[in-house]
C-alpha cells in the first residue's frame, strides 16, 4: 500500500537556456491520488513527460514503480498510463478503433483489445459515440477518449495532465469517482490541474511546483496555516447591512471589512479562530446562513506560494 509509485529525486531539465524543470523531488504513493499544482509554465507538463519516459532528465533520478524509465523505458511504459494535455486523436479513427489500436501497440491480443475497448468506452461515458470518428468529438469527449487511451493496458501508475479541462460538471464528478476508484485499486495517480477546487475534492496529497522546483513541505505547511478568508452571509439582510453587527460581535472595525457581492469577508489565522467566531456570531443571535472558507486549502496554499514568489 505504501510502496512508492513514483519517486523523483533532484530532477532537472532545460531546453536550451529555458530551465523548464530546475529541481523536482517528489514521491507519489500507490493507492493515492497526488495532485501536481503549479502556475502556467511551472514545468508540470515537462515533468510529466519525463515521468512518462518521453523526455530524459538532464540530472536526477526517476523511479516508476521501482523502474528507471531512462534505462528501461519498455518496462516503465508497460506500467505507466499517460494522458497528455494536448488533445491528440487520430481524426478519422473511431473511438473504438483508437483504443483497439493503442492496445495493440501495448502488445494486447486482438480479442482482449476489443473487449477492453468496449469496457473502457462505457467507463468514460463514450459508449454511444464508440463508432463515430474522433474528428467530430467535442473537447470534453476527446478528453475522455484520452483518459480511456491512458487506461487501455491497465497501468499501475497514471499520469494525467489536466484531465478535467473541457469536461462538463457531470463528467467531472464521474472523473472524480473514477480516479478515486483507480486509487482504491492500489494504483498511483498523479494528476495536474489548474482547477484547484476540483483537485481539492479528489487528491490525497499535493505537490506544489513553482518555477520548475517542488516546494518543500515546510514551506507548504507554512503557507497553508497563514491567514485565510471566510465568507459570511446573514439570512435576513444584505452584506452592507450585515457588516456592522458582524464587526461589533467580532470586535473588528466595520470600515476595514471587505464586501464581495452578498458576502462579508473576514480573515482568520487558524481554523480555531474561525470556529470561535462562528460560535460568537450565533451566540449574538445573528442568523448565519453561510460561514465558509473562501478558498480551499490547495488554492489558498497555491496563491500564497504564488504571492511569495512575486
Amino acid at each position, binding site marked *: 500500500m505504501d510502496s512508492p509509485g513514483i519517486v523523483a529525486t533532484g530532477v532537472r531539465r532545460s*531546453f*536550451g537556456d529555458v530551465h523548464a524543470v530546475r529541481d523536482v523531488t517528489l514521491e507519489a504513493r500507490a493507492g493515492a491520488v497526488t495532485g501536481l499544482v503549479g502556475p502556467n509554465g511551472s514545468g508540470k*507538463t515537462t515533468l510529466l*513527460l*519525463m515521468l*512518462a*519516459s*518521453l*523526455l*530524459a532528465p538532464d540530472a536526477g533520478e526517476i523511479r516508476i514503480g521501482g523502474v528507471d*524509465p*531512462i534505462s528501461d*523505458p*519498455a518496462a516503465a*511504459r*508497460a506500467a*505507466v498510463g*499517460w494522458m*497528455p*494535455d*494536448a*488533445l*491528440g*486523436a*487520430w*481524426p*478519422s*479513427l473511431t473511438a473504438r*478503433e483508437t483504443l483497439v*489500436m*493503442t492496445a*495493440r*501497440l*501495448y*502488445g494486447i491480443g486482438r480479442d482482449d483489445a476489443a473487449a477492453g475497448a468496449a469496457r473502457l468506452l462505457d467507463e468514460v461515458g463514450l459508449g454511444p459515440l464508440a463508432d463515430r*470518428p474522433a474528428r467530430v468529438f467535442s473537447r470534453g469527449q476527446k478528453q475522455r477518449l484520452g483518459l480511456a*487511451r491512458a487506461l487501455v*493496458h491497465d497501468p499501475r501508475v497514471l499520469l494525467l495532465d489536466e484531465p478535467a479541462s473541457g469536461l462538463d460538471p457531470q463528467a467531472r464528478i464521474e472523473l472524480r469517482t473514477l480516479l478515486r476508484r483507480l486509487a482504491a485499486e492500489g494504483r498511483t495517480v498523479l494528476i495536474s490541474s489548474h482547477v484547484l477546487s476540483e483537485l481539492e475534492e479528489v487528491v490525497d496529497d499535493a505537490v506544489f511546483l513553482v518555477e520548475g522546483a517542488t516546494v518543500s513541505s515546510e514551506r507548504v505547511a507554512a503557507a497553508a496555516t497563514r491567514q485565510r478568508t471566510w465568507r459570511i452571509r446573514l439570512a435576513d439582510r444584505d452584506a452592507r447591512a450585515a457588516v456592522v453587527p458582524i464587526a461589533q460581535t467580532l470586535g473588528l472595525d466595520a470600515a476595514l471589512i471587505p464586501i464581495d457581492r452578498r458576502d462579508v469577508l473576514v480573515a482568520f489565522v487558524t481554523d480555531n479562530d474561525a470556529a470561535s467566531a462562528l460560535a460568537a456570531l450565533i451566540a449574538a443571535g445573528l442568523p448565519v446562513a453561510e460561514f465558509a472558507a473562501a478558498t480551499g486549502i490547495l488554492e489558498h496554499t497555491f496563491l500564497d506560494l504564488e504571492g511569495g514568489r512575486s
Partner: protein
Amino acid sequence: MNGGRLWTIARLELLQRVRTVSWYVLLGVFALVLIGVTGLAFLSFGGWEQSGAGVYSVVVYVTLLLVLLVSPTLSGNSINGDRDAATLAPVQVTLATTGEILLGKFVAAWITGLAFALVAVPFLIVATFAGGVLPWTILTSLAILVIETGIIAAIGVALSGILARPLFSVAVTYLVVAALAVGTLIGFGLIGSAVSSEAVSKSRYAATDAYGNMECRDGSDSCYGDVENMVCDDWQTTTYRMPRYDYVWWMLSANPFVILADATPTNFDTYGNPDDMFGWIKSGVRSAQLSPPLESTWDDCDPASYGPGEDSPTPEQIIAETVPSWFVGLGVQVVLAALLLWWAWLRTRTPARTLPPGTRIA
C-alpha cells in the same frame, strides 16, 4: 522489433489514408492521366500491332514519374506532422519502439505509393495484350518501380523525422527527388561540357580555280579520285572543344529513370534498334560511356578516306560494348535512404535527450 506492433503502426497510417476523399480523387486523376498516356502511346508507336512493348514502357515511366511527384507529399510529413497533431507522443509512450514507428510509417508510405502502381496495372495489361512485351521485361521493370517507390517513401519518412517543420521536410524531400531525377541530368550535362577536350580536325581539299572548277594536272575538267592528276590544297587544321560525357556518365546512374531503363533487359529489332522506351533511354545513356573521337581527317587526295567510313554503332552494339550501372545507382540510393532513416531514428528516439529546435515532444 516486433512485427505486430510495426504493422499496427502501418495500419494506423493506411486506415487514415483510405478514409480521406482527396486520396481517391488523386488516384482518379492518375487513372485519367494514364488513359490519355496509353491512348497517345498507341498512336505514336503506330497502332495496336507490335506497339505493346513501347506502350508498356511509357506507362511504367509515367507511373514512376507520378510516384516521384506524389510520394513526397504523402510521406514527407508523416512524423513531424504527427508531432504537430499531438498524435506522435501517445504512440511513443506505448511499447512501440522508435524503430517500429519509423519502419511502420515507411511501410505505410511504401504501400501508399504502390497504390499508384496498382492503378497502372490495367493499362500495363492492355499494353501486354498488344504483344511484344517480354516476361523478363515486365518482371524487372516492375521490380525496379516497386523498389524506387520504396526508396522515395523511405527518404520522405526519414526527412520528416529529421526536420521539425512538415512544410520544410516535404520541400526537402522534393528537392532530394529533384536532385536524383533532374539534378543528375543537369550535373551530367554541365560538367560533361565543362571538362571538354580539345579535338583536332585535319582536312585537305582538291584545289579549285576562281570559278570553282577542279584543277587537274592534265587540264581536264574532272579528275576527282584520280590522285595522280589531282592538285591538292594545303592541309588545314581546326581545333574545337569536345564535351567529355565519358568522364561523368556515372552521374546518371543514380537517376531513377535511368536505373529503370538500365536494369530492364532490351529486345532489339533486326536493325539493332530497341523496341521500347527503356531500350532507347538505355542506349542513349550508355553511349555517354564511349569516348568521343578527338581526331578526324579528311583528304580529297586520298581515295581511301572516301569510303562509307565507319558505321556509327547501332544501339544494340552500344549496349553490348558498355557496362551496366543501375545496381550502383540503386545501391547509392538505398544507402542514402538507410542513412537518412538512421538519422531520423536518432532524432525521434525517446526518452529524448535533445529535441530538434523549435519542437515540443507533445
